[in-house]
């Protein structure tokens, strides 16, 4: 099978013309460590936890597709609100860990939370050299709460 070998000059010139045009365009690259890109407000970066809102209902841990949320809690007896009333029982959170080594960032936990305790934050700079450090405990998850942005304005 012998093919006619064409002289590639016209195609080369046309291609170089595209390259030349690109040369004078502004480069769309963000030089990352020096210049930080601002993620969109809806970006799913990291999950933050509002410990006070959490009622240890375990819905998020149950609905998680790869079961990467670990929750432990205990019941605490509170004094009755009125003298002579029944003592109240309140669930207290002992442990709330999310293993970001397993998490697949689907957002189901955030969506099913009925008490608004979980939020998405677009922060992304939490890579680790050791995989064990990707297990964020509840103190670390609470720290992310400050980075949760306002929801974006909506179309129409």
């Amino acid at each position, binding site marked *: 099978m012998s093919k006619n070998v*064409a002289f*590639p000059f*016209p195609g080369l010139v046309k291609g170089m013309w595209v390259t030349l045009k690109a040369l004078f365009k502004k480069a769309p690259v963000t030089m990352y460590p020096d210049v930080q890109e601002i993620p969109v407000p809806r970006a799913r970066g990291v999950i933050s936890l509002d410990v006070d809102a959490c009622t240890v209902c375990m819905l998020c841990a149950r609905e998680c597709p790869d079961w990467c949320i670990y929750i432990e809690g205990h019941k605490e007896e509170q004094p009755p609100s009125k003298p002579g009333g029944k003592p109240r029982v309140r669930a207290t959170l002992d442990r709330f860990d999310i293993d970001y080594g397993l998490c697949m960032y689907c957002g*189901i936990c955030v969506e099913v939370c009925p008490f608004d305790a979980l*939020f998405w934050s677009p922060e992304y700079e939490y890579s680790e050299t050791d995989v064990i450090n990707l297990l964020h405990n509840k103190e670390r998850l609470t720290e992310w709460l400050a980075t949760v942005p306002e*929801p974006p304005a909506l*179309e129409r």
Partner: protein
Amino acid sequence: MTTPEMIHRSETAVSIELQTPDMTLNIGPQHPSTHGVLRLVANIDGERVTDVEPVIGYMHRGYEKLSEVRTYAQITALVNRIDWVSGFANEVPFIAGVEKLMGVEVPERAQWIRLILSELARISSHLVFMSSYPLELGATTPLMHSLREREYILELIEEVTGGRFHPNFNRVGGVKPAYGGGSTTKKQSMDLPEGFFQRTADAMDRMDVICDDIDQLVTGNELIKMRTVGVGVIPGSKALEYGLTGPNLRASGVAYDLRKADPYLTYDQVDFDVAWRPEGDCYDRYVVRLEEIRQSARIVRQAIDKIPSGPLQAKVPRVLKAPKGQVYSRAENPKGEFGYFIVSEGGKIPYRLKIRSTSFSNLSILPWILKGQLVPDLVAIMGSLDFVLGDVDR
């Protein structure tokens, strides 16, 4: 002076002297031309491939089995990882199947948003092809141009859904970003962010420009034409026999497109042409995909004009339970027909989920088409079929 007869005589002498028996060559599992971990066991006679056997399964993640122990909402998060260059398009047929099972009517605005994002996924998938295919043929410049433009598309998808690759945006009965809690945000319906239509229209203008650029860089290039024209010809009848769908089928002269043949979402309300070519060689498969980017941009522009305002979510029960039954639901994905066969015995999880993944069917033609081809053409043909190994092995 050497005459052609003398050359011919000496070549015959060489092949008699040098025994050239068949040699088995393993291409892959790790090889730059295979788009992932595909292993080809090729029998080659000199430079000619006599027999090829694809060995798949290196990336088998067992999605069909995993789906049997997960709720419908959790499966949505799984299925957009099947074909990772067009994550949104994988969700659409699955969620449409569940909606068909449960008898949920989807609001019109949600359907239009699904259509827009499906077409954006198609553009981004084809732009990956526009970058990887010339790269396999030895041209590195188109990669820079098309991946740059793809980033604009991914930014749009991220802006709406929150994820660049894995949107997880479809819910049974509508669309909704997995955007976080908060009593303030819950009261609002989670619609598209402000200015999305304007930015999408701008991005579509960019797509026209990049299509012209790729046209100049690749389409008319003599070297690319020498590598692709007349190479790896699949006749239409063979393509149908092997169950090829999508651009690979349309390049073989069969203008079959599910968006026209069996309109889903709101594809019957937009005006577009089915891109097809008669020859069925690598060049045609490339040209069809380039034309599809233009058509997708055209669809998105119309959708922006036509999209009505209204609710995004139909009323569905909080715990999703599909009634007993079975349903097959399909859609035209960037790579072809993508289908889910869902069997439900009632309850929160499906009894069985069969995934008809496009790339698996498209890859099945490899042993037939690679027979008798040259080894360098093997790379050109495989690249032109545009398969993703995650989609093959699932």
